[in-house]
């Protein structure tokens, strides 16, 4: 089911949580609402769900206006950050809840409920826990039960609030992949909120970047990474070196390959992998020093500091493959030259 938001605004007292949000989400997408904490992403999700009322604007699902509709009639599945499982019910009863509260006409028979709940528990691979209580489960298990519970009512839209926020790193990694596969199989339009850009890039088919209650950019993960709309997005998504050309002593950047002929703004954002390192030639006077390096798995991250005379004080990060790093035979304290292959320009 497609989701369409037009001109959504929301204030909490004096604080403006959302300002004129317009957003269209086509059917079947897995969308990440990404932004720093306090940017309004959870509020937006709750407004879509009907748990919060917008001060202005309309919400429609599949072209049908749902703005005034109560959450219980919207046909959405909501997965809460802290799962909000019903503590006094077993896992089975938790998942069956949405079916049991249906009115007499639409409520399935006990046998069908039983069958359906077990099928859902199979789907989240936790059928063996059906008679446990939520307090007896681990975080990852609770998360999956919460998801199964939301799916039981066959929602047309699935909304997840920081679905992996409360889990430890290794469980999170597994669940991300699992959620992506699940979405692929069910193909229900889904939106999840996250402050973790890596998570958004890995899981989502569409990413919406929010900041201060506004949408900064919307697009496919690679779009957003390769063509950030503004400095905030470029800085927030992935690692970036920021060079302010108005600053003192940035002349060395020219010889470093940041061609002034291509200057399209005052500030250049350069991804670490767009910086190439070469061993210093004898006659070069624009060298930087290799201060430290870290092993990131497939990549080596090199931390570089300027030689001091040129003013740039913040370290510059460059990334290269293990092979390249080995070939360069670099050591801490070596003098190197930089070559910048590509930069994003902002004002």
């Amino acid at each position, binding site marked *: 089911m497609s989701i369409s938001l037009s001109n959504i605004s929301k204030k909490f007292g004096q604080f403006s949580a959302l300002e004129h949000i317009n957003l269209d989400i086509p059917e079947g997408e897995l969308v990440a609402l990404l932004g720093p904490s306090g940017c309004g992403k959870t509020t937006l999700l709750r407004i879509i769900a009907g748990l919060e009322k917008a001060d202005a604007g309309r919400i429609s699902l599949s072209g049908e206006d749902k703005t005034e509709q109560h959450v*219980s009639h919207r046909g959405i*599945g909501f997965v*809460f950050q802290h799962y909000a499982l*019903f503590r006094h019910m077993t896992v089975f009863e938790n998942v069956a809840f949405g079916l049991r509260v*249906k009115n007499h006409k639409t409520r399935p028979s006990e046998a069908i409920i039983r069958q359906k709940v077990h099928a859902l528990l199979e789907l989240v691979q936790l059928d063996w826990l059906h008679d446990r209580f939520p307090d007896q489960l681990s975080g990852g298990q609770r998360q999956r039960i919460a998801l199964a*519970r*939301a799916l039981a*009512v066959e929602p047309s839209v699935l909304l997840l609030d920081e679905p992996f926020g409360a889990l430890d790193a290794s469980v999170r990694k597994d669940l991300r992949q699992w959620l992506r596969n699940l979405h692929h199989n069910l193909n229900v339009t889904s939106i999840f909120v996250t402050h973790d850009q890596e998570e958004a890039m890995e899981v989502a088919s569409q990413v919406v970047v929010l900041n201060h209650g506004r949408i900064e950019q919307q697009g496919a993960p690679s779009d957003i990474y390769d063509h950030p709309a503004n400095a905030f997005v470029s800085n927030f998504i992935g690692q970036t070196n920021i060079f302010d050309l108005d600053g003192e002593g940035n002349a060395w950047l020219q010889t470093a390959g940041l061609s002034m002929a291509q200057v399209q703004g005052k500030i250049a954002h350069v991804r670490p992998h767009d910086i190439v390192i070469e061993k210093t030639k004898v006659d070069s006077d624009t060298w930087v020093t290799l201060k430290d390096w870290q092993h990131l798995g497939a990549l080596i991250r090199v931390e570089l500091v300027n030689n001091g005379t040129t003013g740039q004080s913040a370290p510059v990060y460059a990334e290269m493959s293990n092979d390249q790093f080995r070939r360069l035979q670099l050591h801490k304290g070596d003098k190197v030259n930089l070559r910048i292959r590509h930069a994003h320009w902002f004002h």
Partner: protein
Amino acid sequence: MSQSNIMPGFRPTLGFTVLYLSLVVLIPLSTLVFKSLQLTWDDYVAIIAHKRVLASFRVSFSTALIAAAIASFFGFIVAWVLVRYAFFGKRFLHALIDLPFALPTAVAGIVLATIFQPSGFLGKLLLDTFGVQIAFKPLGIVVALIFISIPFVVRTVEPVLLEFDASMEEAASSLGATRLQVFTKIIFPNIFPALLTGFALAFARGVGEYGSVIFIAGNLPYISEVIPLLIVTKLEQYDMEGATAIALTMLIISFLLLLLINLLQLWVRKRSGQL
């Protein structure tokens, strides 16, 4: 308890607890038992099986149970209002709740008797419009007991309601539950154990209540005479044996009823995975 226990002070604190319970609870109560044991079984049965005594038992326990039930209902609503809504005068209402704790019960009794007696302000109104007389009837006892036991319910339910995770309600709503279903299937089952505790406290307080009851009850033998009053009456007649026999019986029944409530609570908690 092993020597390497992290929390120090196990011995002195347990010693203090045992000493305290002995001085304040165990010794007085065992005296009661020993005193009663001086009676023969036949004497004991004769005292307890006396019609007036049996009637008093019936009055005391039935009014206490009814009052505790009603106080639980209203106490729950009061706690709900205090926790869930913000309104002007909330702090004042908060203070008002505890007033029956602080008020001498005799004062409460006299005030209640004054307004609920047939010529009193509320008593007249009720008698004229509904034909119901409250004071000097078992109903009067119930009213007095509700008055003094409501704070017990409010103060036991309130913290549990405060702690209640509101996202559970939102989750239930998002799954299509109506407001009524959210209440009956989500909120109430989570509050119920606390409500049972409040009920038990209200009941225990009600059974032993003397001061506030005697003024409004009318104290008619066989009709509105409560056990505590009967005990005092016996004492005033220097009938120590009679008084202790009744007191012991009351203690045993109260203990059994409280045990029953606790078992019920245990069962509810087990069933809802809280244990």
